[in-house]
C-alpha cells in the first residue's frame, strides 16, 4: 500500500468518526439554541399577553393624589434601591468608581415634576446610606433659563446650549475621579460585540416622532461617540450611563454634552451609553451584559425620580431594554385596576 493510499484510507475511516463527533456537538448546540429560542418565544408571548392585558399608563399619574406617600410608591422605591445596590456592587467589583448624578428633568418651565420632588430626597438619602458619591445638579439647573438650555416649548430635552452647559457641569466630576483605575481587563474573545445598545456604526437621522430631526452616530461598539475604543486602553475611561438626559436626543453628536466634554478633555475617553426611555434596571443589565467590558475607570450614572416611577410594571413591560415580562405585584395590580382598567 502506497503511503498516499494509506492516507486516503485513514481519512475515509476517520471522516465518519469525526463527522459523528461534530454531529454530536452540533446536536447539542442545536438543542441548546432550540431551548433558548423556545424560552425567548415563551417570553415574547408572555410579554405580549401582559401588554395586551395591561396597556401602558402615564407614569406621572402614579404621583397624583398624594401618590408619593402610597404603599405602591414605597414598593417602587425599594425596588429602585435594590437595583442601585446591585449596580454599585457590579461597578465597584471592576475597580471602577461609581458616581450618581441627579439631573432634574424640565418638562415645562416652572415647578418640577411630582416624581422629581419625591424622588430626589429619596435618591440622595439612599446614596448617603450606601456610601455612594451623589452629585445633585438641581441648583445649577434651576439657575438656568429653561428656554435656553432646553428645546422648550417643543420638547424638554436639552438644546445646544444645554449640551455646553452640561459639559461644564460634568467636567469637575470627571476631573475629581479620573485618577481612579479599574482593576479588571477582559480578553478580546470575552468582550461582547457592543458596549452600548445602539447598532454598531449607526449613522442615521431620527426625529423621535417630534419633528426635531437630529443626526445620530454610534461608534463600532454601539456607543454614542465619534471614535472606536481600542484595547489596551491608554487613557482613563469615563462611562456615562442614564436615560435620554444622557443620550441627548434631538441634538447631533457634536452638540451633546459628552462630545463637547471630550473635546475639552482630550486626556480622557468619554463614553456615552445613554438609553432612551430607560430606568435603573436597564442600567444594571446594560452594565453587566455590555458596558463593563469597555473597562471604564469611572461610571457616572444619571438618574432622577423618573427612574423610580418607571419601575412600575406596565412601563417596564413596554419599554425596558431586555423586554423581560414583569407580572404585576398585588399593589401594582390593585392600583392598575382601581385607576385605569375598571
Amino acid at each position, binding site marked *: 500500500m502506497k503511503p498516499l493510499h494509506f492516507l486516503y484510507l485513514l481519512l475515509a475511516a476517520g471522516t465518519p468518526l469525526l463527522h459523528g463527533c461534530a454531529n454530536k456537538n452540533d446536536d447539542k448546540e442545536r438543542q441548546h439554541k432550540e431551548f433558548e429560542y423556545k424560552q425567548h418565544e415563551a417570553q415574547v408571548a408572555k410579554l405580549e399577553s401582559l401588554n395586551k392585558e395591561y396597556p401602558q399608563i402615564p407614569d406621572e399619574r402614579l404621583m397624583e393624589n398624594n401618590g408619593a406617600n402610597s404603599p405602591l410608591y414605597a414598593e417602587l422605591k425599594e425596588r429602585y434601591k435594590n437595583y442601585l445596590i446591585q449596580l454599585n456592587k457590579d461597578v465597584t467589583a471592576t475597580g471602577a468608581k461609581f458616581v450618581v448624578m441627579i439631573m432634574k428633568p424640565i418638562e415645562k418651565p416652572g415647578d418640577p415634576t411630582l416624581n422629581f420632588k419625591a424622588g430626589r430626597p429619596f435618591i440622595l438619602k439612599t446614596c448617603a446610606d450606601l456610601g455612594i458619591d451623589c452629585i445633585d445638579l438641581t441648583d445649577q439647573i434651576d439657575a438656568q433659563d429653561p428656554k435656553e438650555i432646553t428645546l422648550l416649548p417643543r420638547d424638554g430635552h436639552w438644546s445646544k446650549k444645554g449640551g455646553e452647559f452640561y459639559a461644564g457641569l460634568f467636567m469637575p466630576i470627571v476631573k475629581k475621579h479620573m485618577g481612579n483605575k479599574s482593576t479588571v481587563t477582559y480578553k478580546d474573545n470575552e468582550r461582547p460585540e457592543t458596549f452600548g445598545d445602539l447598532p454598531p456604526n449607526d449613522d442615521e437621522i431620527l426625529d423621535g416622532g417630534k419633528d426635531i*430631526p*437630529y443626526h445620530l452616530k454610534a461608534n463600532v461598539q454601539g456607543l454614542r461617540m465619534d471614535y472606536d475604543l481600542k484595547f489596551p486602553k491608554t487613557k482613563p475611561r469615563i462611562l456615562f450611563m442614564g436615560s435620554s438626559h444622557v443620550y441627548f436626543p434631538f441634538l447631533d453628536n457634536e452638540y451633546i454634552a459628552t462630545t463637547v466634554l471630550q473635546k475639552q478633555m482630550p486626556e480622557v475617553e468619554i463614553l456615552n451609553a445613554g438609553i432612551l426611555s430607560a430606568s435603573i434596571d436597564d442600567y444594571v443589565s446594560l452594565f453587566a451584559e455590555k458596558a463593563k467590558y469597555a473597562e471604564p475607570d469611572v461610571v457616572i450614572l444619571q438618574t432622577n425620580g423618573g427612574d423610580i416611577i418607571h419601575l412600575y410594571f406596565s412601563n417596564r413591560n413596554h419599554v425596558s431594554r431586555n423586554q423581560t415580562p414583569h407580572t404585576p405585584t398585588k399593589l401594582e395590580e390593585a392600583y392598575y385596576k382601581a385607576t385605569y382598567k375598571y
Partner: protein
Amino acid sequence: MLFNTKDFAQFFAIILAVYWLVWQWREVRNVFLLLACSYFYYRFRNTLPVYLYSIISVSYLSGLAMSRIEPQNKRKALLVVTIVILGLGLAYIKYSGLLLGNIPGMEQWQASAMHIITPIGISYFTFSTIGYITDVYRRTIVAETNFIVYASYISYFPHILCGPIASAAGLLPQFKNPVKPSLEVIEASVAEILWGLYKKMVVADNIAIMVNYCFANYKDQTGSTLFLGVTLFSFFIYADFSGYSEIARGTSRLLGIELVKNFKMPFFSRNPGEMWRRWHTSLRKWMLDYIYLPLGGAKVGKTKYMLIIFFIFCFSGLWHGANVTFICWGVLNGLYFFVYLFSNSFTRYKDLPGKGKLLPNGKELLQMFITFNLATIMRIFFRSPNMEVATGFFMKIMSASLFAAPLMVVVRKYVWCLPMLAIEWVQREKDYVLQLPRVPVAIRVSVYIAVIGAIWYFCPKQSATECYYFKF
C-alpha cells in the same frame, strides 16, 4: 383618514362594494356617494363639513340663478359677486395671517386668532367651485340642477384633499353616468394605486426626515449636504404629491370616474416650460382657463403677455400659502420662464425625451439635468419656513463648501429615489407606470405582488403621514 392607512382600505372596500351593489339605482348610488364623501371628510379632522357645504350651496345656487338669467351684464355681476364670496372665504381663512397679522391693531381679527380651523382642501374645493361657476357663466356647461350630484362632484373624496382640481366640464357629467370599469381598467387602477402607494410610503416617507433635517440644521451643514438635501426635497415632493394623485386616480376609476393625470413625468422635462406642463397639471389648467385666458392669453402684446405670465407665477406661489417664501418661489420661477422666452429656446416638446429609445441622447440628458436643478434650487424657497432660512440655505449652497464632502447619511437616502426614477424613465411612455402590455398575467401579478412586498418591507415603521400638499 389618509389613503395610506388600513382605515382607508377598509372604508374604500365597503364603499366600493356598496357602490357597485346599488349601481343600477342612480339616485341611491349618488346619495350613497355623497354620504361616503361627507363621512370621509368628517373623519379627517372629526369636524363637521360646515364650511365645505356652505361653499357648495353658494356655488350651486349661483349656478342655478345664472342659468336662468339671460342678460350678460347681470350674469357677469352675479359671477363677480359669487367669486368674491368664494374668494373672500378662502382669502380670509388662508391669508388673513399674512394680511392682518402685520397691521397693528388688526391681529385679533386673523382667522387663527378667531380660532377658525382651516378646512382641509379649502384651496382645491374653492377653485373647483370658482371654475364651475365661471363655466356656467361662459355657458360652456349647463348648471347642475341636482344638488346631490353637484355636492358629490365638489366633495368627491378621492380629490377633495389635494386634487387634482376638477374641471366641471370633464368631471361633472361622469357623476351622472359613471363608466363601469372593464377588467383592463380595474387592473390599471389597482396598478396605479400600488405605484402611488410605493412612491408615497417607500420613497417619500423614507426621505422626508432627511429633508427636514437639512432645513432644520442648515447652518451646521456643508453646501454639498444642503444641495443633496434640497434635491432630495425635489424627489420627496414629487413622490409624495404624485403618489397621492395616482392613488386618487386609481380609486376614482374603480368607482367609474376618471380624474385627470396630475403629473406627466415632470423630471424628464427639457426646459421650465415643459416642466410646468407636466407638473401639477390640474392647477396649471385651472390657471390657464380662469386667469390666463380671461386676461388675454397669448393674443396681447409682448409686455402685457410678460405681465400676465408674471402675475400667474406670483398667483401660483401665493396659492401655496400665505408666506413671502412662496411668492418668492413663484417670482423666481417666472423669471426662469422669461429667460427661456427671451432666448427663444423655449421649444414646445410634444413627446418625452428619447422617444422609442432606452436612453436619452447627450443633449436631452443635459437639458433634463439643467431643468431639474433649476427647479430644485427654487424649491429652497418653497420648502423654507421663512426668508431667513431660505437665503441662509441658498448662500450655503453657493459657498465653497459646495465642494466639501457631504454627509454620507444624505447620500444613502438616494437609494430610495433612484429606483423610482429608473422605473419611471423606462415606463415613461406608458399610460401608467406599472403597465406591462403583452406580458403574461402571471408575470404582471408577480410584479404587483413584488410592489406590495416592497411597500410592506420598506415602508418606515411610523404612523401614516399626510401628503405635503394637504396644507395648501
